[in-house]
Structures are given as C-alpha cells and as structure tokens.
C-alpha cells in the first residue's frame, strides 16, 4: 500500500523534526525551580522559550503563561477572568473548549452569555457585537480562525471595539498561525490562546497571552509558577518545542501560506465537480483549511472508506466520528442538519504536496462512482 496522505493538520500537525531535535536536549531537564545549576539551566531554557514566544507574538515575556494546551488555555482565560454577574458576547462557532466552559460558567457562576449570529460564511458582524455590548459586559469571545471551516474573523476590528468599550477580548487563536504570518495580538486583545501541536510543536503544551496577568485568577492551586496564574512544574521540552515551532512558522510563513493557497486552489478545482465548498472563494479564510459538503453521502462512511484507501481526513472537528451529530458550526451557519452530516474537512501541513490533493480527488471520485 502507498504511504497514506495526511490531510488532517488542523486536528494535529506532526511535530517538525527540527522541533523534536531541539526538544530532545531537554528531556532530562531538572526542575526550573531548583537552586542548583541543573535547575538554573532549566530555568534559563524556560525564560528563553518565554521570550522567544513573546517576540513571535509581539508581546512582553511576562504576559505569556505556558499551559498544557489549547483547552487548558481557553478554560483559564474564561474562568480566570469572569465573575458572577458578568455579561459575555460570544461567537457561536467557537471550539467546544470555549463553548463548554462558557456554558458551565452560565450555570455555576451565573454569568450571562449573548451568542452572536454568524452569516453563511461563518462571519460575525461588528454591528451585532456593538449592539450586544451593555453595562455589565466583561468580555468579547471570538476565535481567530475556525477549526472546521477555516473562516477568519475580523479580529483586528473586534479588538478596536473592545478597546473603545474598555472590556476584555479573548481570542482563541489555535488555528491562526497555520494561515497567517502576522501576530494575532492586535490592539484590544486581552486574552489569546495557542496550542503547540497545531503548528508543528508538540502535543501537551500551549500558551495563554494575558495582557495583564495580575487580573487573572489561577484555577489550580500549588506553586507560584507561570506568573502565579498556572501552578505546576513547567514542561521544559514542551515549551522549548512550542517556541521553536512558532519561530519556524514565522520564518517560513510566507512560503507556507503561498503553498497552502495553491493547494487550496487545486483542491477547489479537483473537488468542485464532486461536492460543494462550505465557504465561497471570496470569503475571509485561512488557506490551510477547506471544508466540502457532499450531499447524498454520509461523512462517517466516507471517512472510513477514505481511510481504507490511505486518505486521512476528518469531518469537522476531531472525534466527530462515532458521534453522528451534525456539526454545530455548520448549523450556526445555516446549513440544514441533513447536509451538515455530509461535511469533510481537509487541512494542509508543510509537507503536503499537490500529488496528495490529486490522490485525494481520485479516491473521492472512485468512492462516489462505486456507491
């Protein structure tokens, strides 16, 4: 069998070998809290990783909190900032690691959430955000790039709205770097989360940018590591890996984004006759992620059939297989439930080549002809 074609980088992108190499030197690191020289080395590596990450984001090192990943960063951003009586304006197509903490906060701390609407292209409206802000609004929650469709939100403008209103703006930027070279920390962004393994870093490490760490309350209790916001012995190989991956992305983003754009175009040409793209070509979107609807087919079945052909893709966000429920993101965009269950998502990585796209299209064509 031919080696498989991996088009699921939005779920997790393989760790870049150059990142692995950097991490290996730190597998046996000491505790950065220790006084001895081994501890000092670890502490220096941690500080350096923080600074490298901060430079990539264009922020100060003390504004970076390392975590165990995107989900922890998102929970910490919300739980660390919101209190009883707060009002939140949130995008409905957020990742479950944002939607579910918000829902839990509604029931446990009696915060109030006003969900925005999105149009057929997954876009929130700035006027809608402005309209929903009220006296007790504490935070705007809008992601940078949608993980299922690739839709890019007008983060820069939302930042300005938040800044003018003097409220928090939390942006889940997990998928940001795969399609953008600019830092997502625009004016007005007060909270921003990243996940290492979405851009060639390792799994199990993420970070949270906090404009003012003093305003965040820790959600776990222990030592005073990570600006006293996130206790626990820091994951030295992990943070070294995250910082390295981030630097590599920024250094190579131009070529990568160019590559993704041409892969994206090829995919649209090849799959155009077979299905229908979720987003129009003109909509603001990350070139790394493309979703297609295949009305009349069942995504669960197609995923298995494609997998048996060595074509590794996914349907919407990871782990939909075995759930069978239509994607909440597509439903929010007005896609009918029976069509929403026919979606497949393709996402590229630095090693994706045009022959991978051709193989995918050929596999899909065969599969649709034979069923």
């Amino acid at each position, binding site marked *: 069998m031919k080696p498989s074609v991996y088009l699921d980088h939005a779920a997790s992108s393989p760790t870049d070998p150059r990142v692995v190499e950097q991490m290996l030197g730190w597998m046996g690191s000491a505790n950065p809290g220790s006084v001895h020289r081994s501890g000092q080395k670890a502490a220096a590596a941690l500080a350096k990783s923080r600074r490298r990450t901060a430079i990539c984001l264009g922020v100060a090192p003390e504004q970076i909190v390392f975590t165990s990943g995107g989900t922890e960063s998102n929970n910490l951003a919300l739980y660390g900032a919101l209190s009883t009586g707060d009002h939140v304006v949130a995008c409905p197509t957020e990742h479950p690691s944002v939607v579910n903490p918000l829902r839990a906060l509604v029931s446990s701390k009696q915060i109030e959430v006003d969900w925005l609407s999105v149009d057929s292209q997954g876009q929130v409206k700035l006027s809608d955000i402005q309209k929903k802000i009220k006296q007790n609004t504490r935070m705007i929650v809008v992601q940078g790039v949608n993980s299922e469709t690739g839709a890019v939100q007008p983060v820069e403008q939302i930042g300005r709205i938040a800044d003018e209103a003097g409220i928090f703006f939390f942006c889940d930027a997990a998928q940001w770097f795969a399609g953008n070279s600019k830092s997502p920390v625009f004016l007005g962004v007060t909270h921003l989360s990243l996940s290492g393994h979405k851009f060639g870093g390792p799994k199990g490490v993420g970070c949270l940018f906090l404009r003012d760490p003093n305003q965040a309350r820790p959600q776990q209790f222990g030592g005073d590591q990570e600006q006293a916001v996130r206790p626990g012995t820091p994951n030295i190989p992990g943070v070294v890996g995250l910082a390295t991956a981030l630097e590599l992305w920024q250094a190579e983003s131009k070529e990568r984004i160019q590559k993704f754009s041409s892969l994206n175009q090829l995919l649209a040409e090849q799959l155009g006759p077979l299905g229908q793209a979720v987003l129009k070509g003109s909509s603001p979107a990350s070139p790394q992620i493309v979703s297609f609807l295949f009305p009349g087919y069942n995504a*669960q*079945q197609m995923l*298995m*059939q494609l*997998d*048996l052909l060595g074509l590794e893709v996914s349907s919407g966000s990871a782990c939909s*297989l*075995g*759930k*069978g*429920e239509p994607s909440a993101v597509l439903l929010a965009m007005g896609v009918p439930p029976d069509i929403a269950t026919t979606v497949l998502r393709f996402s590229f990585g630095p090693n994706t080549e045009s022959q991978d796209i051709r193989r995918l299209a050929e596999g899909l064509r065969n599969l649709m002809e034979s*069923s």
Partner: protein
Amino acid sequence: MRIVVGMSGGVDSSVVAAKLVEEGHDVIGLMLRLWSEPSCKDNRCCAPEAVEQARMIAGDLGIPFYVLDYKQQFKEAIVDPFVQTYLAGETPNPCVLCNQKIRFGAMMDEALKLGADRLATGHYAQLIEHEAAFELHKGADSTKDQSYVLYRLSQAQLRRCLFPLGGINKTQTRELAAKYGLEVASKPDSQDLCFVGEDGYRGFLGRATSGLIKPGKFVDTDGNILGDHHGLPFYTVGQRRGLGISFPQPMYVLALDSDQNQVVLGKTAQRFTQKVVVSDLLFQQDPEPFWGKEISARIRYNSSESLATIQSHADGAELIFNEPVADVTPGQAAVFYHQDMVIGGGKIKE
C-alpha cells in the same frame, strides 16, 4: 478476503479478529455505539472500557478500527419496541431483534459499504454451505450455543456471515487468546440487557413507561380475584417469587391478560401446555419437508429443546409437543431445529 469483525473488546471477538488476521485476510474492526438509559452509565456492549479494549487489540493486530454511532437507530429499532411489547403484556427478546436489525442489519450494511465480503462475529454458531444455501447450526460448545438468538437472520444475511468460533468451545477460545497473546480481561457473561442500569429491566421499564403502567388484579383461571398487582410489565410467565401474596400452595404466573389488565395465577399443574401457536415466522430453510413432522423446538434462551410436531396454522405454525412444556411465554422466540440445524422460528403467540 476483506472481512469486517464486529468487535466488543471481549475475548470472543478479539480471538476472531486475531484468527482472521493470522489466516491472511484483510480485516477491519468495527464497533457500534448503542443507546443506554441516561441514568445508566453506558451500554454494556460498547462502554468506554470496551471501546478502549477493542482499540488496543486492533492496534496490536495492526488492523483499522472504527466506532460508529448507532444510538438513535438502536433506541428506535430495539428499545422502543421492547417497551411497547411489555406494555402489550408480552415478554420480548430484544437480542433476537438486535441481531436481525442492528448487528447483522446496520453493521452488515456498514461492512458492505467498506467493501467487505463477510461480517465476522464471536457468536458460537456454525454456518454450513449446502447446495448454494446456508444452514445455521448450533455451536459445537452446547453450553455457549447462540443459534437461538440468530434465528431471524435471513439467507441474504447468513451468506455474508462468518462465525469462526462455532466449531470450538470456550476453553479452546481462551487457549487461542493465550496463543495470540491477547490481553483480554475476562468479564463474566452478563445475562442482563445491555441498555439498562443496575436495577435491571424492571427498573428501566418503570421509568420508561411512567404513567402508562396501571396496577390491576391477580386472578385465578376462573376469574376469582386474588389480590393487586403493580402492572403487567413487572411480571413474567412462570414467575413465582415476588408476587406479594402468600398462598397455601405454590402459585405461578400463567398469563398476562392485557385486555383486562390482569395477571392470571395458577398451580404447578396449570403451567403446562402441549400446544403452542407461533406467529411472525422466518424460515432459514424450506419448511415444506418439515410440516406435520417431528422437530425439536426451543421456547426460551438457555433452555433445551423439546420434541414437537409442527403444523401449519392460520397465524403461522402450531407446535404440538410430545410432552407438555411449562411456562410458555408470549413474545419470546420459538426456534425450530432439525437435529442441530435451525429451520426457522417465530414469536410465541399463545
């Protein structure tokens, strides 16, 4: 041959998968997520532990493994009719229906869509091809034989089934597991339904039918009132304990009368009957040669067969047993055998 194995994480289906891999087949593991009562943790057939176990086995064997969501379909096709049958005063057998509609229905469809030639499971039953047709025979291990719950599979289903454990016994299966190095925790075979919680099917029925179950009267065969019952679904034909009344001699549930909402009780001698009408027939073999002849019939899971003459009847078939049989339960399956071969079967009507 491409073969899909219905995996449960248990020793039987794991051995099946390993055996087929060893034989050089292109094996794919499949598991369906089924519905369970919200208060109960998980459906026993596909609890997270079972999924993890199956995943590990598939990983060790190097075969693809997929889990598919069939909760809603299972609820509609199996659980809802289960409740309705009880409300109608009959005792359903959901496993028979599940094998027909879900395991060898929906899962078979999935297998075919994956390009499989066969769907293999760990059932203890044997398939014998004979003159372009398939015969379902009892498993070689009589203590594990599962042919009874497979009687509703059609020829179209049987021709695509594979039961690699049909010819061996459980001890041999365990030996194979050891040979293949399968680390399968041995969990006790459960007699309970997979989708109900710890308080069993009666607790489930109470919740699933709240408001629909009406208390009524216990009566004897002459219609004399003997006491009050909690509702038909809480009783089964043949039941003696838990009636809540004491009698000078043992009294058994003889019948559930849904028209009158009465539970009919009687003495030991009244439990026996010689004639049983069976409806909703499904024949795996041509029934012609058997009409008017002696066959053996099993009228509940985990019991032995009794000899009976099978005759055509307006509602399907009538069994006239050589010796009277006890506690014939409407709703349960009656399966007809010729020696070890399943001829067909149906639902006990009266």
